[in-house]
C-alpha cells in the first residue's frame, strides 16, 4: 500500500493516530473552523475529497475557462461527482467545486449579511421556519467573518442591517455602466449602493489587489478574490494536517450511538483509512453534508446518522436568478472586470412578495470579444466586423430571489447509481412553487422598469421559466431548537450525537436572498467557539 494513496506525489495520506478534531471538507466552512481550532492549539486533521490546485497554474486555468475544448478548470464531473435529479434539473456540478478551498475556488465572491427578518420569517410572516439565533447573535461573527475574508465595502447601503464598524477594505468604485443606471434609478426612486466583495481593492492578508483580469468566476489568477485556500494555509501554518484526495465514505459511531468514533476515507488506490478524533465537523457543502449523513446509516440510525428528525436532506433550497438584458445606443463598457459594483436591496424586506429579492447591476452584460472570437466561424476582417457589431452596447441586470423551504425539495441517495467508490450518488429533487415564480416575476418587473426608463431595448429576460439556481445549496441539515424538527442546534452541533458538528449553508432554516457565504463563515466562527469550549 502506497502511503500517498496512489496519487503518485509521495505525500503521506495515512491517518494520524488520533486527533482532537477531524474536519471533513476544506471549503470556507471547514477551513475557518480548522484554522481557529488549530490556532488555539488543537490537533486538527482536515479530510478533503478533491485535489490541491497549485496557485501557479491559475493563468493556465483561466485559459481553460476562456478557450473552448480545454475542459473545466476545476475538473468537476465524471463518476466521482455523479448525481441524478428529479423535478427541475439542478446542475449540481456547475454549482460546486471539490478541492482544497472548496467552491470558493470558483465562486464570485459577493458577501452580504442576511437581514434581521431572515432569522424570523415564521414569526414575522408565517412562512418558513425561525432560526434559533437572531441577527444580534450573529452580528459580531459577521464582523469577524468580514475581516477574515477581507471584504471591500462601504457604509452607503441604507437597507443593510445595522453595523458599527466600517468594512476592512474600501469598496470598489462604481462602474461606468452603474452611472448610466443611476440616472434612470433616480427618476424611478430606486436606490443604488455599493456591493460588499470578498476581493482585494487593496493588498490585504498577503494577497494582491485586484488586477482586472475579469474572470473572477471561475478563476482569479491574481489571488485578489478570496478563496478558502487562504484559511487552509493558515490552518496548516498553525499545525493542522490537510489530506487531499481523501473523500470520506462514512462516519462510524460507538456502540451507544452517542458519539462518532471515526471517519472512514478512501484514497484513489481504493484503500480505506480510519481517522479517529474526539470531535467531528462536517463541512462538505449543502448537498454532500446531507449525503454523508445518509451514507452513514447504522442500526441505531437506519434513516441516516443524526437523522432522528427525518429532516436530513429535506428543505433543500437555492436562490433563483432573475435577470433582464438590453442594448443601448451608446457604449456601456462591459466585461472589463468580472464582479459587480452596485446593487439595490430596497425591495428586500417588502411584504409583497414576502420572498426577499436583491437586484444587481451587472458589469458583464453581453459577449466578451475574446470568447465570441473563439466561437466564431470566421476570422480576419470579417471576424472583427462581427465583434464590433456585438460588443459595446449591452446592459443588464441580475438578481436573486428567495426560495422558501419545502420538505419535498430534498437530497436522497439514488440506489441505482454509484460513484467511483461504489456509494449511491446524491439524488436532487427540486421544484419551484407558484409563489417563488411570482416573486421572480416581480423582480423582472422592476428590472424591466429600470431598463425601459434607461431607454434601452430589452432583448432577453430570465423569468420563472428560464430561471436557474444561483449555486447556493441550503437547508438540508437545518438548525433549530427542537430535535424532532431539526438536525443541528444553534451552535451547529447535531441533536443526536454529542461530538458531531455540521457547518455550512445546509444548516440554514431559511435562506433569504443574500449570497450565503458570509453567513456560512460567521456560523463557522461561532461553531468554532462552541467546539473549542467542548474540548
Amino acid at each position: 500500500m502506497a502511503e500517498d494513496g496512489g496519487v503518485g506525489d509521495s505525500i503521506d495520506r495515512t491517518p494520524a493516530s488520533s486527533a482532537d478534531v477531524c474536519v471533513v471538507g476544506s471549503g470556507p466552512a471547514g477551513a475557518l473552523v480548522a484554522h481557529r481550532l488549530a490556532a488555539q492549539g488543537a490537533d486538527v486533521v482536515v479530510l478533503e475529497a478533491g485535489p490541491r490546485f497549485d496557485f501557479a497554474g491559475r493563468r493556465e486555468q483561466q485559459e481553460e475557462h476562456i478557450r473552448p475544448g480545454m475542459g473545466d478548470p476545476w475538473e468537476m464531473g465524471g463518476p466521482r461527482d455523479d448525481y441524478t435529479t428529479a423535478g427541475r434539473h439542478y446542475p449540481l456540478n456547475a454549482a460546486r467545486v471539490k478541492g482544497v478551498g472548496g467552491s470558493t475556488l470558483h465562486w464570485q465572491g459577493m458577501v452580504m449579511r442576511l437581514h434581521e427578518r431572515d432569522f424570523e420569517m415564521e414569526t414575522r410572516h408565517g412562512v418558513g421556519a425561525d432560526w434559533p439565533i437572531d441577527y444580534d447573535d450573529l452580528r459580531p461573527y459577521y464582523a469577524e467573518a468580514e475581516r477574515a475574508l477581507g471584504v471591500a465595502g462601504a457604509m452607503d447601503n441604507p437597507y443593510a442591517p445595522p453595523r458599527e464598524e466600517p468594512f476592512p477594505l474600501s469598496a470598489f468604485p462604481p462602474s461606468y455602466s452603474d452611472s448610466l443606471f443611476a440616472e434612470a434609478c433616480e427618476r424611478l426612486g430606486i436606490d443604488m449602493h455599493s456591493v460588499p466583495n470578498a476581493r482585494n481593492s487593496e493588498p490585504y492578508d498577503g494577497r494582491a489587489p485586484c488586477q482586472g483580469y475579469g474572470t473572477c468566476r471561475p478563476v482569479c489568477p491574481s489571488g485578489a478574490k478570496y478563496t478558502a485556500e487562504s484559511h487552509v494555509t493558515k490552518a496548516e501554518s498553525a499545525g493542522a494536517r490537510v489530506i487531499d484526495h481523501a473523500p470520506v465514505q462514512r462516519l462510524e459511531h460507538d456502540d451507544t450511538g452517542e458519539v462518532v468514533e471515526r471517519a472512514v476515507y478512501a484514497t484513489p488506490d481504493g484503500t480505506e483509512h480510519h481517522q479517529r478524533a474526539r470531535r467531528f465537523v462536517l463541512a462538505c457543502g449543502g448537498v454532500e453534508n446531507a449525503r454523508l449523513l445518509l451514507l452513514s446509516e447504522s442500526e441505531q440510525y437506519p434513516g441516516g446518522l443524526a437523522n432522528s428528525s427525518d429532516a436530513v436532506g429535506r428543505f433543500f433550497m437555492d436562490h433563483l436568478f432573475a435577470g433582464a438584458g438590453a442594448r443601448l445606443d451608446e457604449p456601456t463598457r462591459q466585461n472589463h472586470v468580472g464582479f459587480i459594483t452596485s446593487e439595490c436591496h430596497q425591495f428586500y424586506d417588502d411584504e409583497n412578495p414576502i420572498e426577499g429579492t436583491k437586484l444587481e447591476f451587472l458589469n458583464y452584460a453581453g459577449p466578451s470579444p475574446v470568447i465570441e472570437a473563439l466561437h466564431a466561424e470566421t476570422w480576419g476582417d470579417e471576424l472583427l466586423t462581427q465583434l464590433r457589431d456585438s460588443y459595446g452596447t449591452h446592459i443588464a441586470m441580475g438578481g436573486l430571489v428567495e426560495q422558501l423551504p419545502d420538505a419535498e425539495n430534498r437530497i436522497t441517495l439514488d440506489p441505482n447509481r454509484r460513484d467511483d467508490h461504489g456509494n449511491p450518488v446524491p439524488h436532487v429533487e427540486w421544484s419551484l412553487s407558484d409563489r417563488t415564480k411570482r416573486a421572480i416575476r416581480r423582480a423582472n418587473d422592476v428590472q424591466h422598469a429600470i431598463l425601459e426608463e434607461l431607454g434601452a431595448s430589452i432583448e432577453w429576460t430570465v423569468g420563472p421559466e428560464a430561471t436557474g439556481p444561483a449555486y447556493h445549496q441550503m437547508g438540508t441539515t437545518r438548525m433549530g431548537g427542537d430535535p424532532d424538527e431539526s438536525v443541528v442546534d444553534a451552535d451547529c452541533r447535531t441533536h443526536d450525537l454529542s461530538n458531531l458538528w455540521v457547518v455550512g449553508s445546509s444548516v440554514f432554516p431559511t435562506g433569504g436572498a443574500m449570497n450565503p457565504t458570509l453567513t456560512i463563515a460567521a456560523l463557522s466562527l461561532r461553531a468554532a467557539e462552541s467546539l473549542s469550549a467542548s474540548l
Partner: protein
Amino acid sequence: MAALAAAGATVGGGVLFGRMVPPRSDGGGAASDGRDPSAAPSLSSDLLDLLDATAEVLYPDGVEGRRDFVETYVLGRVSDRSDYRDGLREAAAQLDAVARDWEGSPYAELDADARDRILRNLGVETADPDPEGPISDRIRFYLVDDLLFAFYSSPAGGRLVGIENPIGHPGGIESYQRGTMPDAPGNTNGGESDG
C-alpha cells in the same frame, strides 16, 4: 561559497531567461528538442514563421508588430508548457504538410489568400477545437484558437473592438470606471500591448 552562489545565479538567470524570451525557432527539429522526427510530419519552416503567417490570416488587416506579438504572447505564453508546445508544433507540422501536398509549398511561403483557403478548405472555420480530434480540430485548437485567444485577450485585439482591458488581461481597475477608451480608435500596434 562564492562559486556556488555564482552557479545558483546562473541557473536562476537561465530559468528566467527561458521564460521571458520564448524559443525563437523550431531549432532544426529532433536534435534540439529530442522529439522523434518520424512521429509526425516535419515542419519545413521556422515555427514562428508559420504562426505569423497564420496570424496574418486570422488577425484583421493592418495589425503592426504582429510577429513580435506572436513571439511573445503565443510562443512565450506556452514556453513552459511542454505538452502543449508539442501539440502546437505538431498541428503546425500537419498544416505545413497539407500546404506542401495541396499547393506544393510550405505554408509560410504561400500568399495570404492561399493560406486562408487552405484553412477554410480543411473546415477549420466550423471545426470543434479539440486537441485530440482530427487534424482540422487540432488546427482549430492549437493554431486558430491559440492565436485568436492571444490577440483578443490582449489590448492589441481588444482595442480594435472597443475594450482596452479585455478578459484575460490584467489591465487594472480603472478602465471599467471610464466611459470611453483612451486614444480611441486606438493604434493597432500589436507589439505595444503591456501583457
